[in-house]
């Protein structure tokens, strides 16, 4: 159908990702300290000669544009380089951690969007007490820092009630059977996903409610009523889809935020994802690893945005490219 459109958007996306890489590369080099300094510090006794040797060995003595060109050249060949700290290829390191982050971010996203839309719908449709409740709940989650929600969740559901595991992605004790393994991961997923998702659920709920109230006085709603449609049908068949469009736009924007937010949540719950890898890479000035992570996350954000735009086009015929 609109293959041309998608291809065009992908071309745009590649451009964006490359810009992100260049930008991050420059920013990282502007920060004081480099791997050679850190290694020198760690080894305890070293001199200028050692630092110069290390710099030469890693190519850090080259002028920055040359380094950048080399890096971009490698990236274009899908080579993310080697982590000198972990002594393993970056691609491998990231590949190991990526699924956990994707699982966390995606479940938080789906959860927040579904719950948000549902709550917003209930609030707008039934007003009164329901509306008040939804407003209070979403305001609470919106105003509370994510890490605090996570910590409280651990205290209540892990320590007090002992319903949910507090950290990690798998039980320490080995689990038998494929099904049990999946259940085990899901069990571990509940708290982090909720912690991450509830904040965004609050945003989506408020937006959905406002959007529905905006759609309600529109003419086509009156037309539907004039056709004899029941109030329920008008809300479900006519208002819901129209009111969902702004929420969808917002969801596309927030998707990137959720990927970023997962870093924090991963720290709280010791979730073995890309976020903690990034954190360690920053401390160790592991430039290549860090750049690789940025590349992968920005690619994810671009893809999610493309996906929301494609969904938008499917929902709204007016947005279809001519």
């Amino acid at each position, binding site marked *: 159908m609109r293959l041309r459109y998608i291809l*065009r*958007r992908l*071309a*745009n996306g590649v451009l964006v990702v490359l810009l992100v890489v260049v930008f991050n590369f420059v920013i990282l080099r502007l920060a004081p300290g480099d791997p050679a300094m850190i290694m020198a510090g760690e080894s305890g006794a070293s001199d200028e000669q050692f630092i110069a040797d290390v710099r030469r060995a890693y190519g850090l003595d080259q002028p920055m544009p040359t380094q950048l060109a080399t890096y971009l050249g490698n990236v274009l060949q899908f080579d993310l380089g080697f982590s000198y700290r972990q002594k393993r290829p970056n691609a491998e390191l990231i590949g190991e951690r990526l699924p956990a982050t994707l699982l966390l971010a995606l479940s938080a996203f789906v959860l927040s969007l579904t719950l948000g839309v549902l709550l917003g719908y209930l609030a707008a449709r039934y007003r009164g007490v329901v509306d008040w409740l939804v407003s209070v709940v979403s305001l609470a989650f919106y105003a509370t820092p994510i890490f605090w929600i996570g910590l409280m969740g651990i205290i209540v559901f892990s320590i007090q009630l002992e319903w949910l595991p507090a950290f990690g992605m798998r039980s320490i004790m080995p689990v038998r059977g494929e099904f049990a393994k999946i259940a085990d991961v899901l069990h571990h997923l509940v708290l982090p996903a909720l912690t991450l998702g509830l904040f965004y659920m609050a945003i989506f709920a408020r937006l959905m409610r406002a959007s529905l109230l905006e759609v*309600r*006085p*529109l*003419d*086509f709603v*009156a*037309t*539907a*009523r*004039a*056709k*004899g*449609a*029941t109030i329920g*049908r008008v809300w479900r*068949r*006519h208002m819901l*889809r*129209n009111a969902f469009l702004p929420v969808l736009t917002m969801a596309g924007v927030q998707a990137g935020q959720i990927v970023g937010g997962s870093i924090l949540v991963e720290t709280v719950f010791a979730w073995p994802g890309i976020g903690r890898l990034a954190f360690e890479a920053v401390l160790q000035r592991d430039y290549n690893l860090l750049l690789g992570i940025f590349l992968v996350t920005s690619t994810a954000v671009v893809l999610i945005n493309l996906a929301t735009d494609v969904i938008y086009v499917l*929902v*709204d*015929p*007016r947005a279809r*490219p*001519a």
Partner: protein
Amino acid sequence: MLAIRGLDIPLPIKAERRFAVRGLSLDLAPGELLCIVGESGSGKSLTARAVMGLLPDLGLRASAGSILFEGQDLLALPPRRMEALRGREISMIFQEPMTALNPLMRVGDQIAELFHIHGVRLGRAERRERVAALLADLHLPDPERVAAAYPFELSGGQRQRVMIAIAFALRPRLLIADEPTTALDVTTQMQILRLLKELQRERGTGVLFITHDFGVVAEIADRVAVMRHGELVEEGTAAEVLRRPRHDYTRTLIASVPRPVEQAEAGEAATGAPVLAVEGLVKTFSVRRGLFGRERRVPAVRGVSFRLRAGETLAIVGESGSGKTTLSRCIVRLLKPDAGRVAIDGEDIGGLGGDALRARRRTIQMVFQDPHGSLNPRQRVGEIVMAGPLAHGAGRAASRATAARMLALVGLDEGAMERFPHQFSGGQRQRIGLARALALEPRILIADEPVSALDVTVQAQILELLQDVRRKLGLAMVFITHDLRVAAQVADRIAVMSQGEIVEEATPQALFATPRHAYTRALVASIPGRGAI
């Protein structure tokens, strides 16, 4: 068939009057077309909504009276029963065809939904056939294609036909039409009016037709009811009310319908060099989607030329999309034309920029269509009117004096300067807009649909004012409008615009008597109620 008895609809406590509709009684016989005529705030639309059981969600409901439809009181009917009547026995068409259809649903599905709601079980193929047949009844070419289209792919006239298709689909006995042609171009309006009349006759549907335009009344009504401030002022057969209106208000309404002045005022014919000369003006918009998208070129104005002398009014008449607004914006250089010349007093302002252009700008001022959107809501009226002179270097005291003088000229007292735009009615706001333009002492006034958003009686007052001001100040005026009747009333010459070109230019008398271009003939023939009022 329909009998409204003593209907009261109270307004919320804070409102300026207590009742939106007060003690209204009306009857409609089967197969009859009753026009309810009134200006904004007369309660005509609320009456229609009350019959439909769809009063707006502001806590409005009928507090007294009854609405009897074939013997049963609609006001006392439980929601389920009312839903069963709506769309099947009583249907409705709305004013705004652009927004009355769900933008995300195919047109055919929106028609077919009616069958689903009212339990008419049809197979897929059968449903497609029914929908196509309905659209074909409304003289829509290629019904299959229209059914598969989304609303945004159709023109205003086509969408209104779709609405009518929905309204007639289940052969209702009563149709309520709330200003169904007000938002349409005149030629389309005439087609829709004929179509409605034809369907009404053919099927014996009773129609309650809400309008503000006595021209439309003359065109289609069997009987007329005139409403004002929520009350019925006068009622009678169309011929009776049009020929011998009994009530003063009805007389005012009918007299306010713009019509061509019989004789050109002698000695007014302007002579001398043109103050404004437009030659071969071209403007093309290019639309591009995204960074790598293809460019699409849309010509809006294609080589327009005209001349305007001091004290003369030229009306530019055209339907939506004819390029008349783009033209006016190019003349005042809100847009930069691609080619052609705009000369004021023989000097081409096309090459001017910066201060020279600014200085020239004060000689050519604009009055806009929307009296609500064109004044800054956070500024006092005095500031708004003074802004022009201040920007051109006059002192505060002098600017204030000018502003007061101009407000007086347009019929507003000095107290107006301290108030905000929202404290004025639409007509008053249009006066403010005019004072703002006049404060710069322009020699040319461009008025872009200055009366289209106003009620007829207010419209008549503003037109009168424009003429008055023009005469006093010796202004040259370009008057842009979609309404040939208004043009004929104010203009010395009329230029008819179509698809970016002026197809004909003539005096109003000549234009009405012997229109030369086919499009002009269509426009003249589409004036509602022509000859009857």
